[in-house]
């Protein structure tokens, strides 16, 4: 979608607040939200559906609220959409259904268990597929000038642009369909774009931008 999240190359966002205390969480609630997001995911959710739900946050909130606040809002939305919790329960601040899981609440995990889960959570998204890749390293490619009304990983700044295949990544879960619940693998490439081909104000530069793009975003240039 052409949403507020598609920030690459957008102008007007001002200077960067480069100072950072180096602490992972600046407020208690940030840590709580991080923890919630790690241990409460609705069954059947995909990473791309969660991302798309974050993209669907109202633009004013997306820009105006803190980062982990937007995670909390995304969690709320995915839980409600999946029927895990209801708007009435949020208003009431407590469960309003006779939850069968309630007598058997999830057990506490220790630090060691959590560290093991983090290690086990190195999820791979690639797989072998039958179709041969359409492009190879050094292939000149042209990206689609159309976006998508739903979730996509082809950002606006890289649409209708010429680039060169830098590497073949294997066949990865295609985000546009994964965000609709369909996990289908498609060849994915790392594509190199010259900065001069992306930005009107750039001249005489050898700088590059690299982006991982799926086969259906690309055509042979």
């Amino acid at each position, binding site marked *: 979608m052409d949403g507020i999240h598609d920030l690459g190359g957008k102008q007007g966002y001002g200077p960067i607040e480069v100072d950072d205390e180096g602490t*992972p*969480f600046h407020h208690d*609630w940030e840590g709580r939200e991080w923890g919630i997001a790690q241990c409460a995911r609705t*069954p059947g959710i995909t990473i791309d559906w969660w991302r798309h739900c974050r993209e669907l946050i109202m633009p004013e909130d997306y820009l105006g609220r803190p980062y982990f606040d937007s995670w909390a809002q995304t969690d709320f939305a995915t839980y409600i959409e999946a029927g895990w919790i209801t708007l009435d329960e949020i208003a009431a601040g407590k469960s309003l259904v006779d939850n069968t899981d309630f007598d058997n609440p999830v057990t506490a995990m220790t630090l060691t*268990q959590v560290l093991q889960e*983090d290690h086990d959570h190195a999820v791979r998204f690639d797989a072998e597929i039958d179709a041969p890749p359409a492009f190879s390293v050094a292939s000149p490619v042209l990206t689609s000038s159309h976006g998508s009304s739903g979730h996509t990983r082809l950002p606006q700044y890289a649409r209708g642009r010429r680039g060169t295949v830098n590497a073949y990544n294997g066949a*990865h879960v295609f985000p546009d369909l994964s965000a609709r619940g369909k996990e289908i693998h498609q060849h994915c490439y790392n594509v190199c774009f010259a900065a001069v081909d992306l*930005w009107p104000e750039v001249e005489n530069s050898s700088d590059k931008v690299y982006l991982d793009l799926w086969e259906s975003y690309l055509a042979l240039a």
Partner: protein
Amino acid sequence: MPEFDAEKVAEIHQHLHSHLPSESALRVKALETLLVDKGLVNPQTIDAWIEAYTEEIGPKRGARVVAKAWCDAAYKKRLLQDAPAAIDELGFLGKATAHLTVVENTDRVHNLVVCTLCSCYPFSILGIAPAWYKAAAYRSRAVRDPRGVLAEFGAAIGDDVEVRVWDSTAELRYLVLPQRPAGSEDMTEEQLAGLVSRNSMIGTDRVLGAASKGRD
């Protein structure tokens, strides 16, 4: 099960915009309270995740990977060829690093990592991303004006150096291998790890050294 209904989610967001308290702490509190009441989350597990990403998992892991690559040419080669396997040798494989690519700085190349569409970050080796990495200013500008961004971080990049910006894409994420500092020939791997700043592994820091303030 999700219904994958984007229109419904947009409406939910509008509803939450009007009905949730405006203070972030209260919003998250409301979320945790409800999930705990429904038996879907155990608060002690949340505590454990916070502890894991405060005490154990963070940029010191990435710094150890970098220092080892500086000291061990064979390891560096494995790291550049198959980063997930190489970081798993140190036990640091984990969340969001299964498709990690390591990109190497040289005298002629500087690498910078961003995620313009969300805020993808290699959690299990760098921990929680700094606030600026997740902010609109960095996400919008890093691809378009990387040299201006680097200057704001105090990193001047010569005209003879090519800047390569890596725009992360959901499961494919990046780590910069910075250059080993000058005059560090006699340092141990552990001492070297102490010189590697978090920002140098994202690419917003370039020249490390004894004067480097280390991990930030």
